[in-house]
């Protein structure tokens, strides 16, 4: 049955974009709480489905006002009476007139079992163009500014021609640029020190009188947007030439920066104006605010550090000592902006390129609450930034942009289940209802969330609670069901609704425990638990989270997670931790697993590349290793391989096989690099190389300087000669997996007795 469950899990992921921790559900609350891992799933709402073209009609809804579930293959249908029974609330519903012709042999797609996931295209309602508002820091080095300007110019060629685009630049002041075809550039200048309300910003930009919310009062002629906003947000195809010039002429912030000072950077006000501008002109319309910044905010609301260089930006140490002066206030400012943007369906991206920290810790809510991208690089003049930025505009198999906007995710459950919460790039819509649990896991207390920006990989963890009482058993063969309804604005600007309805068997945990165990998905469970851990780490103190995790007893993955940058802040700046956690909380299962436990492949003459244990014993002299940690791709040549390469064997015709061996991991790495978002760092190193530390820091230290001579079956005196065959010792004080497991076993036994 193992193979069949694996297939079942894989099929469900491919078809429905879901992975459940448990695929047979314990049928009572009591039994469920005994399971360490909660009933939960990873949901990729817009998982790419090339084989699923949207149907061109609207979904049929259950008529009960508190339910409104969508007609699906699990519903009972009375074809003669033209009635269907909702499988969630059991309401009997009349089919709409358009379904008059249905019969057993003439079914609409949404009733067929293979359409457990279906997408509807909504025809009514006006379509609005996509909106991109660039917010550009000009306190950059010349080289960086030039590279950024070119990337922005390039992006005008990648944007959909009828997308609206706007430009705000900032340094000590903030400038909102009017875009016109007349070639006269005009801008509105704001002080970077004073926070302004949305109303004030709209008044100052002259938006108030003519502002017209898109949704309510749409003008009859859709050709032009006759409001004032058109001065700041114009179709790309109209202003591309002028905007190219405007970008080309951008200068570094003209305010002098004296010795020992940081430039005055008004990021907080610039973002506030961007949010206010869109709020006043295009509420509830898909829009991206794209912030490009090369350093920390240093003045006004949202400042993270002062302009004195001698006072460094906050570290974890400062935060622990409650010595981060600006952190709380700045975080509050950006949280306020993020919530406003989310309310209006706008997402905020942050592209931060600098060698030092830029304040991602304080600003992270802007991306995390709105589904925006967070990209961290060293400089705008790097391939890492340039290509990551290009990939924002990549297209799918239909030629549509891989981005969707303004989604609401609505979750419905059968009566035996309640919704505990969600973890991912979303905000709560605070919709209480009968299927909302009082016990929260992640963002709870609601059955609906808003995801302002998402793509085909954006993944949420959704947590449930079994509420069925032990003395009210589910009938034999009974199934529980969950429906996920995602309404969103497709990149083609259409409104669409994706509906996924799934069902799983209930089982009695006492008599059918084996069924439940067999249907356990360890990978999904590991990621779902890790998300909970990271969610807690964001709100609690580090050691508590580790203790909590240790109690959860998921082997292996948890070992690596425990050591990962998602929970350990040691050696990472607060910005780096925020960055890693940002990506961890939104990637799909495969990518999340790579982040928790990096993948290690070994290349040798003995056969095709094979996966090997992430362990120091895998580091061998005659092997090449390829490690993927999601954020880094590392190629490591073993000692002999490195020496052969140094000796130039790859250039000799008779050793072409060696050349191919050297090439194979490079080609594999290239394939990963081409597909990954964001672009990872690429480390090409060898035995003894200084960069080998990236590999050595990830592998399980089975042999360390502490146990080197005492380890395993190999006598200490033979160790030196055997050394290359048995792997490399790692200098570390971290415990190895073995020690960790031993410790966990003791814990488990002691808590059970």
């Amino acid at each position: 049955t193992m193979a069949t469950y694996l297939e079942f899990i894989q099929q469900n992921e491919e078809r429905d974009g879901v992975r459940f921790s448990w695929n047979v559900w314990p049928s009572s609350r009591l039994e469920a709480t005994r399971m360490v891992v909660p009933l939960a799933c990873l949901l990729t709402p817009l998982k790419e489905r090339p084989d699923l073209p949207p149907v061109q009609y609207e979904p049929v809804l259950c008529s009960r006002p508190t339910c409104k579930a969508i007609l699906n293959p699990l519903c009972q249908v009375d074809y003669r009476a033209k009635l269907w029974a909702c499988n969630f609330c059991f309401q009997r519903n009349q089919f709409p007139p358009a379904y008059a012709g249905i019969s057993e042999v003439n079914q609409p797609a949404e009733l067929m079992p293979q359409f457990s996931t279906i997408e509807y295209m909504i025809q009514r309602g006006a379509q609005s163009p996509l909106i991109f508002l660039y917010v550009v820091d000009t306190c950059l080095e010349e080289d960086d500014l030039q590279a950024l300007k070119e990337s922005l110019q390039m992006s005008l060629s990648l944007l959909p021609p009828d997308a609206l685009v706007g430009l705000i630049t900032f340094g000590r002041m903030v400038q909102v640029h009017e875009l016109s075809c007349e070639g006269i550039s005009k801008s509105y200048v704001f002080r970077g020190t004073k926070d302004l309300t949305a109303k004030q910003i709209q008044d100052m930009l002259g938006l108030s009188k003519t502002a017209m919310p898109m949704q309510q009062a749409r003008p009859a002629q859709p050709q032009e947007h006759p409001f004032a906003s058109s001065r700041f947000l114009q179709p790309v195809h109209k202003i591309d030439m002028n905007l190219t010039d405007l970008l080309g002429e951008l200068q570094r912030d003209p305010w002098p920066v004296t010795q020992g000072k940081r430039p005055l950077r008004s990021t907080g006000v610039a973002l506030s104006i961007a949010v206010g501008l869109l709020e006043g002109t295009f509420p509830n319309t898909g829009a991206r605010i794209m912030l490009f910044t090369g350093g920390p905010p240093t003045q006004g609301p949202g400042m993270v550090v002062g302009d004195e260089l001698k006072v460094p930006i906050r570290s974890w140490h400062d935060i622990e000592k409650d010595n981060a002066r600006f952190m709380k206030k700045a975080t509050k400012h950006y949280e306020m902006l993020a919530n406003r943007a989310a309310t209006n369906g706008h997402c905020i991206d942050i592209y931060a390129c600098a060698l030092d920290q830029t304040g991602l810790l304080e600003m992270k809510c802007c991306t995390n609450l709105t589904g925006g991208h967070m990209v961290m690089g060293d400089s705008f003049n790097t391939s890492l930034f340039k290509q990551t930025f290009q990939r924002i505009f990549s297209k799918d198999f239909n030629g549509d942009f891989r981005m969707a906007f303004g989604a609401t995710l609505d979750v419905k459950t059968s009566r035996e289940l309640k919704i505990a919460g969600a973890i991912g790039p979303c905000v709560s819509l605070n919709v209480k209802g009968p299927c909302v649990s009082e016990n929260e896991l992640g963002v709870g207390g609601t059955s609906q969330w808003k995801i302002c920006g998402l793509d085909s990989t954006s993944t949420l963890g959704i947590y449930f609670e079994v509420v069925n009482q032990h003395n009210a058993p589910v009938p034999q063969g009974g199934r529980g069901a969950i429906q996920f309804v995602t309404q969103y604005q497709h990149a083609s600007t259409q409104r669409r609704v994706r509906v996924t309805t799934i069902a799983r068997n209930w089982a009695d945990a006492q008599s059918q425990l084996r069924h439940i165990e067999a249907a356990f998905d360890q990978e999904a469970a590991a990621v779902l638990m890790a998300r909970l851990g990271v969610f807690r780490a964001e709100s609690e103190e580090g050691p508590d989270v580790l203790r909590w995790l240790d109690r959860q007893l998921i082997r292996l993955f948890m070992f690596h997670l425990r050591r990962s940058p998602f929970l350990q802040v040691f050696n990472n700046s607060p910005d780096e931790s925020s960055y890693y956690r940002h990506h961890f909380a939104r990637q799909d299962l495969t990518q999340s697993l790579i982040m928790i436990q990096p993948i290690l492949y070994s290349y040798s003459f003995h056969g095709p590349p094979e996966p090997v244990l992430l362990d120091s014993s895998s580091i061998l002299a005659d092997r090449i290793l390829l490690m993927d940690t999601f954020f880094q791709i590392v190629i490591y040549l073993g000692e002999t391989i490195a020496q052969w390469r140094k000796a130039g064997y790859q250039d000799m015709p008779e050793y072409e096989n060696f050349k191919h061996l050297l090439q194979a991991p490079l080609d594999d790495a290239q394939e990963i690099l081409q597909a990954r978002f964001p672009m990872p760092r690429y480390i090409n190193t060898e035995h003894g190389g200084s960069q080998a530390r990236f590999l050595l820091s990830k592998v399980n230290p089975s042999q360390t300087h502490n146990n080197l001579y005492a380890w395993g079956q190999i006598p200490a005196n033979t160790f030196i000669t055997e050394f290359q065959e048995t792997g490399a010792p790692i200098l570390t004080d971290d415990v190895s997996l073995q020690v960790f497991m031993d410790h966990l076993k003791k814990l488990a036994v002691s808590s059970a007795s």
Partner: protein
Amino acid sequence: MTHCRAGRAEVEMAELYVKPGNKERGWNDPPQFSYGLQTHTGGPKRTPLTKRVAAPQDGSPRVPPSETSPGHPITGPPPLSSKALGPPPLGNYPAFSVEPTNSPVTESETLLEEVLKPLEQALEDCQGHTVVSTGTRRPQEEINSFYWHLSGFSNLWVKYQNSKVKCRVPWTEKAVTFCVVCLPLSTRLEADLEGASVFQKQVCDDISRRLVLLQEQWAGGKLSTSVKKRMALLVQGMKLSSHHWEAADDIHRSLMVDHVTEVSQWMVGVKRLIAEKRSLSSSKEANEEKSTATADKTQIIPGVQQAQ
């Protein structure tokens, strides 16, 4: 239309390359993939590396398998001193199936010939396609202008010298190439000016300003071979019919992505030109369709409407 596919293939060949990242500005900066590699990866994917080895249940490290596997020809113990290094084993690397696809960029100058050949090919295709039964009809004037372009290359020089676009270099192959690329763009502009007028003067001025920039940079030897080559192909795409706007637009995007520093100043003019021509020709087509439709009403010839 085969010429276009050939053109695309050629572009793709030229576009498939990887540049090293900027190691000076970013530590371990990844390599940079060309637009072609990023967007048109049609080839068979390599096996995704997503497998893991299950850890031993007791957590003890496994015995590494490599040295115990029989019959593999690593000679001698791994050297601790470099002189003890044996050679790598001979034979095939087992996982190797195809040559690595690093096709080097050919560094040849874009020649008139290279532009002309596809045109000749296109002409043949065109002649084939003028038969209505093939389903695609071309407006006669477009075909005429195509003939004009082909036969008129020698006349171009004259026209070029008389045009407001001045070139400072003597009559060389380079200049001809420039002629072939820039002039069609500017004549197109003139034609549009005379023609259907959707163009405001401001926009026209903007475009011509950029074409002058292009001309100056080309003539001044500031453009790389790759850019010139792709521009020649882009112009191919613009010349014939609306079917190739997408190809021309794609080449424009590839140039913006791969060579933004070189082309950003003037490319947006070419981009606009493609867009304007495209909408012009689509509205023209729409008009024609309308008139065909009205003609159909009186004549009723079945199947004609399928021609679109």
